[in-house]
């Protein structure tokens, strides 16, 4: 049974990477259509990934430089493997277990930390600037996200994603996005920061610091980071689906709900300019955190 579980989780991981790359292509297409141009094909990210994977590499900057893309990929894949895709289905629940939400919140930071160490070793001046910004930004969006997750944990008296999904069964109005609207608002705003979508895009900042932390990364390194990023995005969509949109009863529903969540940062990112770092962090520490606190207080009073 264990081997079967590993096999199905591996299949799900490959599917997750492919779905993430597909969503990346769709986002490029939608962005292009919003700017009144045709844009690349929706399979463009697969082509890019293959090209990057087969490009030569002649750079060496030290051990951590080599390990950082691996950290990124492992951080993304690990997060993905801890989130159940379809709760209750033994083939599609990956390695989720009781209490996994706390482990998950630690795991989500792993990729960023590995990236920070590797980028700092690359020696390019843009990289430490990007890393500093990324870690500060993380301190910003983690706060409202953690508050809203804690609200759900207290409300459902469980720390497992499976338990939270089961607590939302029985109709659309049982979804946490309707029962805890303020916590959901806090979490969905912090999702913008996690995805690096545009008002909070201070880390990569292409017009300002080249591309930030991965400035010195090329070819195969970049392809690992690229696929890690894709699967990490899918993991976050799945997590938000499970936490707020009532989970999924089959793969089709998982596809529809994650696609809807994927559209939210995409539409925001295409119409906004960019914050500075301190504006961004300050925003996360005020409005979304306040929303989260409102629901936290409400939970205590209603109980």
């Amino acid at each position, binding site marked *: 049974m264990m081997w079967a579980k590993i096999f199905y989780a591996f299949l799900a991981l490959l599917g997750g990477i492919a779905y993430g790359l597909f969503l990346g292509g769709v986002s*490029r297409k939608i962005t*292009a259509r919003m*700017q*009144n*141009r*045709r*844009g*690349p*094909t929706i399979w*463009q990210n697969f*082509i*890019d990934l*293959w*090209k990057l994977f*087969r*490009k*030569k*590499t*002649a*750079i*060496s*900057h*030290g051990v951590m430089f080599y390990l950082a893309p691996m950290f990124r990929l492992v951080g993304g894949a690990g997060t993905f493997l801890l989130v159940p895709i379809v709760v209750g289905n033994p083939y599609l629940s990956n390695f989720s277990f009781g209490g996994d939400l706390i482990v998950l919140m630690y795991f989500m930071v792993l990729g960023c930390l590995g990236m920070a160490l590797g980028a700092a070793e690359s*020696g390019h001046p843009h990289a430490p600037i990007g890393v500093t910004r990324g870690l500060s930004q993380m301190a910003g969006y983690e706060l409202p996200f953690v508050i809203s997750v804690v609200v759900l944990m207290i409300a459902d008296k469980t720390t497992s994603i499976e338990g939270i999904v089961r607590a939302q069964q029985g109709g659309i109005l049982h979804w946490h996005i309707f029962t805890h609207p303020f916590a959901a608002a806090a979490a969905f705003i912090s999702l913008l920061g996690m995805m690096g979508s545009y008002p909070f895009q201070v880390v990569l900042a*292409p017009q300002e610091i*080249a*591309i930030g932390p*991965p*400035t*010195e*990364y*090329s*070819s195969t390194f*970049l392809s690992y980071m690229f696929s890690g990023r894709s699967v990490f995005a899918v993991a976050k969509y799945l997590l938000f689906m499970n936490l707020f949109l009532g989970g999924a009863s089959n793969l089709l529903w998982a596809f529809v709900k994650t696609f809807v969540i994927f559209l939210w940062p995409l539409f925001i990112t295409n119409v906004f300019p960019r914050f500075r770092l301190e504006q961004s962090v300050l925003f996360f520490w005020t409005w979304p955190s306040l929303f989260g606190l409102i629901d936290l207080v409400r939970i205590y009073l209603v109980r």
Partner: protein
Amino acid sequence: MGKDKNYFLNEKPEKMTYGGVFRKINDWARARSLWVVAYGTGCGSIELRPTFTSRFDAERLGMRMVGTPRQADVLIISGYLTVKTLKRVIRVYEQMQSPKYVVALGACPINGGMYYDSYNAINRLDLYLPVDVWITGCMPRPEAILAGFKRLQGLIDSGKADGWKKYIENLDWYRENQRKIIKNWRMPNYNW
């Protein structure tokens, strides 16, 4: 140099072999995913903005601008090249990872154009860097640039865009030409 020593390779790079089992797929993917380093050397870079934005939309060919030479495939020499810029261009080109391609815009890189008798603009680019596609005009319109990129894609697809291989094979010759014109060569010998 000194403390920067670790960040550059100090020996000549090995001759890289090209191909293998997936050669056809590689060429197909490379042709359809050209990342251009966002670096304008002369007046031609003004034509690159409309090429890459909404009106002419080079992204439908799979191209995009990247901010760092490490991740780029294509270096566009956009117009005249002064000796001072040539030094930077060589540095950028050598930091790009193989396979890499050079596209020269306009008349100036071909024969000097209207700066043919200038004291500090170079006349022939291919003495210093291997060029894969030339696009003539002064300046070429975005349509011409897109046509040039279609041609580059065709060359890559058929495996004929091998300027980067020639550069490594004939590095000594290129280096000699470069050093002849760049008097203050204050950069590492090999920038890979």
